[in-house]
């Protein structure tokens, strides 16, 4: 694949995925026989109460944790640990404080063996894409939380993943910045054509971003639910249908 072409999104197939944790000798199942197909270029948003296993699911998909049983296929291949076709954006930007913005964004490519000059040239493109062109030389301690998260996003995009995994990426941002970043994420996702799987606890964010919302059940016996968000983009948060989707999600959590 030409490195300059936008990457095509990857297909994710999840089959009978189960995972439990042992806490103080008690076994707590967090995922039970999950089946799910995610199409190339789709934006799937995962919501669920805390402890429902949404972050665990994302970490399994990232290859940071292994499942107890079941399998995850990316483009037909079972995943074994972390893979270069997937990139993760964490809740914290996780920038290296001793590298400036440019160095941090180039980090992923450099680690994968790209030459320093090549990695940095490529990084500049994505720094511009997230609107931080003027801050390429700034160090993490000199920039705001929202800017730092943009740097994290740029770093993930620089390695041109097929699948972008986002773990509450906007959870730590203030309300204003969050709205702006939701718009940015939509734009980037459409421009890059990447498959996006995102965990959030913000139901409005889920409706704003998702093609489909995966609701993980509160009770372990409950079934997962998939809700198609059939709304044109850009989405209007005050529109009737938007509000109804939000209410539908709220009902899933017994809130109304």
């Amino acid at each position, binding site marked *: 694949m030409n490195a300059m072409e936008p990457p095509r999104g990857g297909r994710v197939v999840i089959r009978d995925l189960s995972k439990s944790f042992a806490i103080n000798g008690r076994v707590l199942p967090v995922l039970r026989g999950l089946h799910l197909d995610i199409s190339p270029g789709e934006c799937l948003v995962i919501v669920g109460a805390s402890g429902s296993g949404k972050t665990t699911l994302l970490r399994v998909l990232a290859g940071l944790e292994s499942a107890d049983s079941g399998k995850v296929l990316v483009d037909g291949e079972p995943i074994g640990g*972390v893979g*270069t076709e997937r990139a993760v954006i964490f809740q914290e930007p*996780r920038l*290296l404080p*001793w590298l*400036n913005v440019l160095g941090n964004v180039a980090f992923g490519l450099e*680690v994968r063996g790209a030459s320093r000059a090549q990695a940095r040239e490529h990084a500049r493109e994505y720094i511009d894409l997230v609107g931080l062109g003027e801050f390429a030389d700034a*160090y*993490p301690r000199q920039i705001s939380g929202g800017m730092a998260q943009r740097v994290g996003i740029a770093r993930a995009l620089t390695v041109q993943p097929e699948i972008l995994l986002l773990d509450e990426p906007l959870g730590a941002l203030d309300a204003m910045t969050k709205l702006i970043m939701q718009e940015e994420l939509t734009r980037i996702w459409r421009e890059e054509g990447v498959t996006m799987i995102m965990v959030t606890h913000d139901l409005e964010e889920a409706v704003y971003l998702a093609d489909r919302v995966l609701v993980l059940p509160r009770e372990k016996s409950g079934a997962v639910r998939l809700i198609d968000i059939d709304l044109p983009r850009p989405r209007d948060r005050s529109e009737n249908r938007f509000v109804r989707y939000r209410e539908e999600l709220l009902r899933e959590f017994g809130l109304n």
Partner: protein
Amino acid sequence: MSLEAIGRGVIVGHDSDGSRSGADVLRRGAKALIWFLSRYGLLLGFLILWQAASRARWLNPAVFPPPDLILAALWNGLSSGALFGDIAISLQRAGLAFVAAVAIAIPLGLFMGQIRPVERLLDPILQLFRQTSALALYPVFILLLGLGEASKIFVIFWATLFPLLLNTISGVKELDPKLIEMARVYGAARLTIFRRVVLPGTVPSIFVGLRLSATTALLLLIASEMIGANSGIGFQVMNAQYNFQIPLMFAAIFILAGLGLVSNYALVLLERRLCRWNGAAT
């Protein structure tokens, strides 16, 4: 950059676009003088007071000779070359010990910090060794290594090893595991993670250890030279006191203070260069 430096920058900027009249130059000079006094005024006052008190015999000049006599003794010692040999041998002792400690403690600390069972196993013995005064062990080292250079270098090495080792270990342990996980996600191999994440992240802690160790090295240098040596600056302090050459004694003390200042300043400069990213270091 300190606030003072920014302040000076503003003053210079203001002057350069105005007319360069005599009054401006005068004002600039006055500002520089005020800055100098605010920084070194108290030190200067202390020296002047010492000079006056000693000359006026408020202080016993046999015990506290006036600074001008001390300076003269220092000049004599240096210009005749008599003190150079002592400075050289002292630097050699402290330097060898310090370099050996750095060469062992930093790699060992980086290794121990990353491998939890090793650290758990070695920590109690390290704590015990650290809490055992190196000076108390000096007689043991003399028994083992004789009264020559080896025991002196070893006691300095021993004392400087632990601050450096323990700070390096804690630097590695306190590193944010989330950063390491981030590097793993990008497919970084163990060695790459070490080189690109662990090592640079530990540098500030290593510098805390280096500065502590440099101070300790000088302290142990002087102590070991006072106990069993016939050369070195520490020996000169003792020897001058025996011979009642009090200005020379103070001259040797000032040389030691100077060595401490220079070594600390060199480490601060190096740290600023290596840790520009760290706000606390600048």
